[in-house]
């Protein structure tokens, strides 16, 4: 049961006391038992549950990735059968995208958005609980579709293109479970999106105008809008696919007169905004972190918000750059749109560097991960511009170049953002610090291992190795890069183990953090760590986008 993530107890409903959590607001925060975790409507508890569950999925997905890399270490077959390999990369991709990065962003949003705008909770706390459990149920089904379904796991790739995903070619019920699980995850995203938008628009503290809202919250707003725009078409696609498979529909089956390309349109209309749903929360995270550790205000707040809005809007018009090689989409249109989206992203890099420029930078662990994010994401972004050019894409589509490109954005970007967020906000969430020394080790191992894993994959892609193959011949120049890549995956695994050790040590021997260990500037640093049930005993006066900084340094207030 992956949703019973570590740190939340067994969740055994039947043996515990009845309804300890329905006592109205106890003065002293009692240690929550399993039933209160199951029934909570508090945005902070739900945020933590989202993050812990998502991280548990990360561990599963990471273990699958290690399996894949071990299989590919050298020519010949190592561990996995053909079918097992296909299932493994399908579930690895699905978990990392839909069950780890996106829900981790949703969890951070749940925890931080009300704190950052000075609200006591989300606008719809009960809906919030429902969306968490919907996500958990959907995640469980996706896991089942990989491991526990009769007739073999689902093996369609995370994109599940028909006709491969039609029942002729994927008869196992695992694919049905997968479809259904993702529909649930989509529903959870919609509910969370509505919740966050309502919270930000209607529950800000007095004086917290929209132009003073922290960048992380702004990015969650744009993320939520994108979720609302992008997920319904994908649910429609999954629904039609389900009808094709179970009821004998022919929406996407060319043998019945259907059109598989329509599935690709619907899927990528989700799929491309989805990558911005994945990355935007972590753009927000590092935009919170850089000013704190550069000890300067953010350079260009307004430009940053407008750039985020521009990315959000443009990202809806680029979906078919995933379909250049189908030959039936308007390549110049999507190429041009995709080049355009690089411009606001460049504006953001300009803002980040401008914020660091001339600052007195403290290289604490969150800042290290942030700098790692900038370096990796830049490579990911630039190779994305290459891929956006249709003539180049025709050469390297579906090669390891593409695999490396999106790992540089998703893992080098989003996952480094996740670690930055964990090290930055862990003191706020628990009231205790993580170990700085171990944190540095995690960073250096992860950064080194990551580049060791994925840089050789650019080479592999240019030498012509296609993605999604279980084996390759020797003598094609594939051996050395693959071996190096597998070693890098091992280094990253060590990094994650060191991180888990860090968590364990920091829970056993607690170092009190105080309310504001970093000298933060947004409103969550003005309350206690961990925050009380209702978040703020007294909301401070808000006169700028840095209310906590103004509170702690009244002499500098404008």
């Amino acid at each position, binding site marked *: 049961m992956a949703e019973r993530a570590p740190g939340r107890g067994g969740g055994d409903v039947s043996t515990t006391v009845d309804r300890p959590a329905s006592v109205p607001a106890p003065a002293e925060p009692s240690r929550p038992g399993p039933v209160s975790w199951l029934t909570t409507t508090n945005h902070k508890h739900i945020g933590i549950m989202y993050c812990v569950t998502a991280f548990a999925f990360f561990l599963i997905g990471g273990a699958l990735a290690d399996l894949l890399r071990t299989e590919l270490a050298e020519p010949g077959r190592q561990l996995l059968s053909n079918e097992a390999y296909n299932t493994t990369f399908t579930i690895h991709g699905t978990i990392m995208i839909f069950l780890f990065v996106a829900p981790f962003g949703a969890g951070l949003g749940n925890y931080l958005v009300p704190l950052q705008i000075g609200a006591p909770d989300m606008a719809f706390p009960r809906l919030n609980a*429902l969306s968490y459990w919907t996500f958990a149920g959907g995640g469980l089904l996706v896991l089942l579709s990989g491991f526990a379904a009769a007739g073999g796991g689902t093996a369609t790739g995370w994109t599940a293109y028909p006709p491969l995903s039609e029942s002729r070619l994927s008869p196992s019920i695992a694919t049905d479970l997968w479809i259904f699980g993702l529909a649930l995850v989509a529903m959870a995203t919609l509910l969370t999106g509505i919740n966050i938008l309502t919270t930000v628009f209607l529950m800000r503290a007095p004086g917290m105008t929209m132009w003073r809202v922290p960048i992380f919250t702004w990015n969650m707003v744009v993320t939520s809008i994108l979720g609302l725009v992008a997920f319904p078409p994908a649910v429609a696609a999954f629904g039609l696919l389900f009808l094709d498979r179970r009821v004998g529909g022919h929406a996407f089956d060319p043998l019945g007169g259907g059109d598989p390309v329509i599935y690709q349109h619907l899927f990528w209309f989700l799929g491309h905004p989805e990558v911005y749903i994945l990355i935007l929360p972590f753009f927000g995270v590092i935009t919170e972190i850089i000013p704190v550790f550069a000890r300067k205000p953010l350079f260009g707040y307004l430009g940053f918000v407008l750039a985020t809005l521009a990315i959000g809007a443009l990202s809806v018009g680029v979906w078919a750059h995933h379909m250049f090689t189908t030959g039936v989409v308007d390549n110049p249109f999507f190429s041009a749109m995709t080049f355009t989206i690089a411009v606001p992203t460049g504006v953001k890099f300009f803002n980040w560097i401008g914020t660091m420029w001339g600052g007195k930078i403290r290289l604490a662990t969150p800042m290290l991960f942030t700098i790692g994010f900038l370096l990796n994401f830049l490579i990911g972004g630039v190779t994305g511009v290459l891929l956006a050019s249709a003539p180049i894409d025709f050469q390297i589509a579906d090669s390891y170049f593409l695999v490396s490109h999106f790992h540089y954005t998703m893992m080098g970007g989003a996952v480094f953002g996740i670690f930055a967020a964990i090290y930055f906000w862990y003191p706020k969430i628990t009231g205790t610090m993580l170990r700085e020394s171990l944190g540095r080790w995690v960073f250096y191992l992860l950064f080194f291992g990551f580049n060791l894993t994925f840089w050789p994959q650019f080479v592999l892609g240019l030498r012509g190795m296609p993605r999604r193959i279980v084996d390759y011949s020797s003598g094609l120049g594939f051996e050395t890069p693959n071996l190096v890549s597998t070693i890098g995956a091992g280094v990253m695994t060590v990094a994650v183990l060191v991180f888990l050790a860090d968590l364990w040590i920091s829970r056993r021997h607690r170092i009190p953090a105080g309310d504001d260990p970093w000298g933060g500037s947004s409103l969550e640093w003005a309350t206690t760590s961990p925050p009380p049930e209702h978040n703020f005993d007294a909301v401070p006066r808000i006169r700028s986008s840095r209310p906590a900084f103004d509170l702690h340094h009244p002499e500098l207030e404008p």
Partner: protein
Amino acid sequence: MRLFWALAAFFVGLGVVYWVLTYEWTGTVLLVVAGLMPLIVAGWATHAGSTRTSLPDDDPEGTPADGAGQELGEFPEATGWPVFIVLGIVLTGAALVYGLILLPAGIALLGWSLVGFIRESRH
């Protein structure tokens, strides 16, 4: 508010451009519908904004005292229903996948938990 008007205009505009360039139905419909959705929010916000005085939230000089007495609602009690709703959905879905014999149980669980969830929100 203006944000949603702008989004609607952008998506519909992009949809028209896309149609003129490609004559491809799927993308055009997706873009235009994506443009119509923000209109709901924008329309509501414009309507509500015209009939309501401004919130202290949006006053750059607002102080916490301005928000005093503002009714934000109350904390809801802890609720166990979401877990059962999701179990109901999962069971119903499993019925569609594994066999319709599970369907009555799934629908019953889903209905029971939905009714419970809604009744609980009334008090």
